[in-house]
């Protein structure tokens, strides 16, 4: 059962076409990776899937809801945006409490304690978010996306600013999420992590999906790593127009 589907999705910003004919499907229980160079259209796609942006054409559905129901989508999923921006004048604890109250989840105190503990932010619980380090702010944003234990997590560069200890901890948590039958949709430039975690990937370049499938399906040669696949699809397409397998 797909939790995300798009068909012929396009988005224009003036003359610039950020997304063109994007069609993909993510099944429940998948760990799906979206890769692409800077400016390829990843964040635009994420913003449409999370109800933050309307498409110019085509269709998108997240948990059965379209971009015309942004509050409904956001209520059902957890989102980590590309840039961390927790509230300036709330403490880390209050930020998570606010998210719980907005989402009307029970056991606010226990949940907040659990996630502050998970990200080792207990001693920072009373510090204003603006005074946290970048990594700590990212942890607060991750905790805010996980705290209501949603069926679907859409994560845009979730590992950014995290030290190796927390990269591993996050990796293990996300693997547990998928093992429990929930779904993760992740954009990342850290190909090593994508290769380790994702059951299926799509590569987006210049607004188009240029390859999609399990790693084995988009490999051209035995032992070809994700980095090689990525370079072939992106650089090769720039140079001699030889792409990977067509999307589908």
């Amino acid at each position, binding site marked *: 059962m797909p939790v995300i589907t798009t068909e012929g999705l396009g988005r224009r910003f003036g003359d610039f076409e950020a997304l063109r004919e994007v069609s993909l499907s993510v099944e429940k229980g998948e760990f799906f990776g979206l890769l692409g160079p800077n400016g390829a259209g990843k964040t635009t796609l994420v913003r449409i899937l*999370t109800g933050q942006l309307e498409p110019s054409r085509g269709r998108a559905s997240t948990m059965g809801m379209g971009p015309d129901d942004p*509050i409904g989508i956001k209520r059902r999923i957890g989102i980590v945006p590309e840039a961390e921006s927790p509230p300036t*004048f709330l403490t880390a*604890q*209050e930020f998570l409490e606010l998210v719980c109250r907005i989402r009307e989840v029970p056991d606010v105190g226990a949940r907040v304690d659990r996630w502050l503990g998970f990200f080792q932010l207990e001693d920072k619980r009373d*510090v*204003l978010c603006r*005074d946290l380090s970048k990594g700590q702010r990212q942890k607060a944003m991750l905790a805010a996306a996980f705290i209501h234990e949603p069926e679907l997590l859409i994560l845009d560069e979730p590992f950014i600013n995290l030290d190796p200890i927390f990269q591993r901890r996050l990796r293990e948590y996300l693997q547990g999420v998928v093992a429990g039958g929930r779904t993760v949709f992740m954009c990342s430039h850290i190909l090593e992590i994508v290769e380790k975690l994702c059951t299926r990937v799509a590569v987006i370049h210049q607004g188009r999906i240029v390859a999609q499938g399990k790693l084995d399906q988009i490999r051209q040669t035995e032992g070809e790593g994700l980095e090689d696949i990525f370079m072939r699809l992106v650089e090769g397409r720039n140079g001699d127009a030889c792409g990977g397998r067509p999307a589908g």
Partner: protein
Amino acid sequence: MLREEWRLHRSFVGAVGSGFFPVMIFFFSLVLAATSPVLLRKMDVSLVLLVLHVSAALYGLGVGALAQIGEQVMTRRLGQVNMLLQLPALQPVRFRTVMGVFYVKDAVFYILYSIIPLVGGIAAAVPLSRITPGGVALLFVTVLLTFMLGMGLSFLLSAVALRSRAAAAAVALAIAGLVALVWPLRLLVPGQVLLPLGYWETQNSLYLLSAAAFALLLSAAAVLLMKERFAPPGRRFRGALLETERRFAFSKGLSALVAKEWLELRRSGALGPVFSGFLGPLLGVYAVIWLFRSGLGLPLEFNVVFYGGMLGFLGLMTYSWLTNIEPNEFLNVQPVGVDEVVRAKLVLYFLLTTPVSLVYLVAIGALNGECAYLPLAALVGLSTMVYVAAVTGRMTGLRANTMLFDAAVLGRFAAAIVPPLIAVTLASFLVRTAFWPAAAALGALSVCLLAASRYLLAGIGPRWSRSAFGI
């Protein structure tokens, strides 16, 4: 920086809106100047010059609060947006250098954006009025210098405040003392304090030279006093959101957001400006009327009902401040619409302004011996407050201070606000002479305003629910 400022303005209100603002000022001053032969039959030219220069000084004071907003620009208002003002954080540039350039940029921008269109409108009216081209040129010089004096003074005050609030309070007190020597003590004439105005009073060029020197001196002193580091020490607060939310439980589904807004207001240090932004104009209106009545001997009969009508119209600044504290970008990924945050801010707005308004009305009622009119004044005050807040929330959402620079929005805003303001003011004048007809008219007007407010408040959802948070 000028290009950055222009792009920022355009990003807020669009190219047409940005470009239209100076055009509107131009036509406004053109109309005023063209009708000046009629106006000058009723008003002395020295009074017109006084009003014009005091306005320019106040405008400069507003624009010049740079140092105070510097920290806000760097740490909160613009969220993820990096401005050139943030260069010293990463590049080998001194903050006072960047602030100096920022000051010049702001001066040039606002001169081009408002002073030149203002004087340009007067210049265009030369054939229609008795104003001479030489007079317009001179007016440009004196208005410009007055604006620069106000800007320099405000810049200096805010730079001093960053080092010592007590020193800033002393400077502010000294300035207030200087003003008091003119009004009400009358030991000095206005031109001796507002130097460019002194030129019009004496035709002595020394006033212009002194004004230019003072403007330079004030801004140079402000730049030199600028602190190099703005980063405040990390602050800790015991978790207060849930407890605060319980206190705002009456706002039902909005209580968590209202609690968040309240905590942010207190911790950001904006509570003072929010209060003074409301109380200041209220006291200012009373002071100006008192001045015209007592100082200039003009027979003005403003009663407590009139002041009730002013409450709503002067609350705009307060709402604008409330929308300036936090860009709320984090809410883009939470199931919250911009419309809900607008409503939460409106709840807080009423909580903050209602007690002040009541005390203000009771005080004026007692001072004027008009306590019998207080219920009517309260009704008029309540209805105008609700109406203006509803219009502002509906038209500007979370961008009150920037969207009102959009000439189209400003035009619609004025069309919605000015007619009721005039109607309330005119009806209030009849209260002493024909109470019951005036009360009936004001009652009907209040009901209309409340009904319109209900419609406008209901429209906040459709208008803003699909908007994004951020600048």
